[in-house]
């Protein structure tokens, strides 16, 4: 553990110099002293985060680490107990006009308007975002095509599979061309084909200079997609920085992660000795 703490500090120190990218650009997201308690339980315990603009950023952590709570507060869907959150230099809670037009969100565990068809949902979202009808139509058609949803665009979302829901949610989040995209577990329950489609769209989107922040607990995915990682556990940030910085000397992100979140070498021992024995 001692080693880890030192690496940790190194990662945090390194971040300011290297990962911020061009010194002029403000960070995509800046979080300071963020707290959230639900009754007795502390979901987020005073985190500080600085996510550089134009990167593919992974927020990783075990179940219950506070990823969803953090993303909800950053996107203005959950009121923090205290703390400062800025997106593109604008305070999320004091300046919602500036922030809400700049972000796209795909939350986890919240419904969509499921009694609309896929195309109707996009038309509704786009026009709520203030885009003209013809423009919404054009963008919706392209998004539905690219995300392989054109065949089921007239089906109600309630009849969609998990992967299709994630894709239509992603389309709705991208429709107004946001600067920062927040995705909570975008690949959870998604088949490999849909996952690849989502991946391609996101990679293309970040190449244009936009920022993607997504949460996941699948390390291989984060390792192959992200160039910047923040590790969360038990409501705190354990490390943040470029992939190489966070990985450190570990052989893979998975191992670095297990060490960071303090999941030691827990073995099953002899308690399951009957398993695989005589039947």
């Amino acid at each position, binding site marked *: 553990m001692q080693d880890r703490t030192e690496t940790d500090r190194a990662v945090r120190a390194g971040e300011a110099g290297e990962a911020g990218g061009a010194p002029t650009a403000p960070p995509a997201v800046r979080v300071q002293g963020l707290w959230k308690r639900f009754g007795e339980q502390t979901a987020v315990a005073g985190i500080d985060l600085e996510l550089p603009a134009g990167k593919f950023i992974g927020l990783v952590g075990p179940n219950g680490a506070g990823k969803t709570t953090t993303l909800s507060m950053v996107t203005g869907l959950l009121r923090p107990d205290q703390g400062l959150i800025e997106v593109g230099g604008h305070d999320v809670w004091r300046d919602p006009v500036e922030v809400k037009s700049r972000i796209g969100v795909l939350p986890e565990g919240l419904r969509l308007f499921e*009694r609309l068809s896929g195309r109707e949902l996009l038309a509704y979202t786009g*026009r*709520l*975002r203030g885009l003209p009808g013809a423009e919404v139509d054009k963008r919706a058609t392209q998004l539905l095509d690219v995300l392989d949803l054109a065949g089921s665009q007239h089906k109600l979302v309630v009849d969609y599979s998990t992967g299709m829901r994630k894709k239509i949610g992603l389309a709705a989040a991208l429709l107004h061309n946001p600067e920062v995209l927040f995705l909570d577990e975008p690949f959870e329950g998604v088949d490999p084909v849909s996952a690849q489609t989502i991946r391609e769209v996101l990679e293309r989107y970040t190449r244009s200079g936009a920022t993607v922040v997504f949460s996941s607990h699948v390390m291989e995915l984060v390792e192959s997609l992200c160039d910047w990682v923040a590790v969360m556990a038990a409501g705190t940030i354990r490390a943040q920085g470029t992939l190489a910085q966070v990985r450190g000397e570990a052989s893979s992100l998975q191992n670095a992660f297990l060490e960071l979140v303090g999941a030691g070498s827990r073995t099953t021992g002899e308690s399951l000795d009957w398993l695989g024995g005589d039947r």
Partner: protein
Amino acid sequence: MSVLDAPVGAAPGRDSTSGGEGLVPVFVRLKLTLLRNGLRQSAGRRAAYIASLVLALLIAAGQLIALIALRGNAHAGSLVVLLAGLLAVGWTVMPLFFPSGDETLDPSRLVMLPLRPRPLIAALLMASLVGIGPLFTLCLTAGSVIAVAQGAAGAVFAVVAAPLTLLVCVALTRAVATANTRLLTSRKGRDLAVLSGLLIAVGFQVVNFGAQRLGRAGGLSALDPVADVVRWLPPASAIGAVDSASQGSYGQAAVQLLLSVAALLALLWLWQRSLVKLMTAPDGSTLAAAEPNREKAGKGGSKLSALLPQGRTGPVMERSLRYIARDPKTKAAWVTALAIGLIVPMLNALQGTGSLYFACFAAGMLGMQMYNQFGQDTSAFWMVALTISSTRDAYLELRARALALLLITLPYTIVVTVVTAAVLGDWEALPEVMGLSFAMLGAMLATGAVASANFPYSIPQDGAFKNVAPGQAGLAWISIFGGMISAALLCAPVITVTIWLHVADMEQWLWLLLPAGAVYGALISWAGLRLAAPRTANRLPEILAAVSKG
């Protein structure tokens, strides 16, 4: 793969005995454990369960006493037979509304267990007998046989008939539920169940009016012709057998009792058959819904959006209207409101006891749909919350929802008022009642908007009769009743003027209430929206949290 598809008779001895007799206590214990764990989950649920248990027992005890008191009445035979028939109907329709009420009985959970159909059915039947419903039914059947049993033969038949009736009822409900499981677990089937709940609600009103008629017509003897048919239908025939035996017609009694036994066996066979099918055939609910032909639907949609205003108002109105047509909960609420809003003034008018003022009921019922606007969105409200960044946005959102509501409510109120006036022939009161209705509608929209912002609550999407998530019932009542009282108070100026014009003999000016009511209603709803908008804009996360429960 289940072993259910193996022939039942081919079971090795060890399996069939251990599976057969051992299974009943396992399932009864499972049912009791599930019940206990369910009650442990929340104090509210515990309280609700105990309250309904006490209520059911009180009603059952009352019925039992009433039935025993009926002993010796000439029409007792008809009454108990009809009661048994009613119970059977109740048990048949119940699974349509409470599809997931009993987890022990959900066959899809048992698929992977090595169970054979016959012992399984016996165990499930016994487990079904645990609960408030069966207890209630047993009280009623016991009371019924006590009411009609005379002599030793009557008593013998009674001892068999009471539990037999209960068993037939339970087997009936299980057979229907299992046959419907696939329907009930698919989305379309549940939509259907929600709508049939609505039919019952509306039907109840009609039955209520019908019962009043019957009450005047001639009392219990009116029941005899119906009872003569029902006493031959199981499970009522078991109760009928007790009556027959008590009167000495043993042959008839035996036939009636055998009819019920045969029905029980037939139901168990049907249940077993559909259970085996259900556990070995692929699940229908996973089959993809056919891609609907949206050639014309697509065009209709674009036409609708072309007619509606631009900006935020259009899409919000469009979505609200689509939800009224497509979301089963919203649709059921609307159809109920529309039906009751029409039935109350019309039936009163047709019975000759009505007054045109009842027509205001339509405005009130429909205005109620403005309440809990965001709860109707469920957790999808986040999509709205993300696009509201100022008080202006919130105002436009609320106004668009009110406009969508008015698009239906305004013409409907006018039609109901005019038609009621035509039935009553009371054209003179039309302008003032219309004016009052408009004021009322405005007040309901205003209070509805304010209540939506301040007291949002979740509407669970499963189950036809669950309209509030557990723990939020108080909030819902505060919102609706507080709102209705405030709406009445807000209407007070218009009501006062109406009364004053009548009392002061200035009836020639009563027509002025039509424009006055309309203007007052418009102003007050505007004020309500203005008041609700900043609350909505400031409370977006709190509203989202409140509507995302359940």
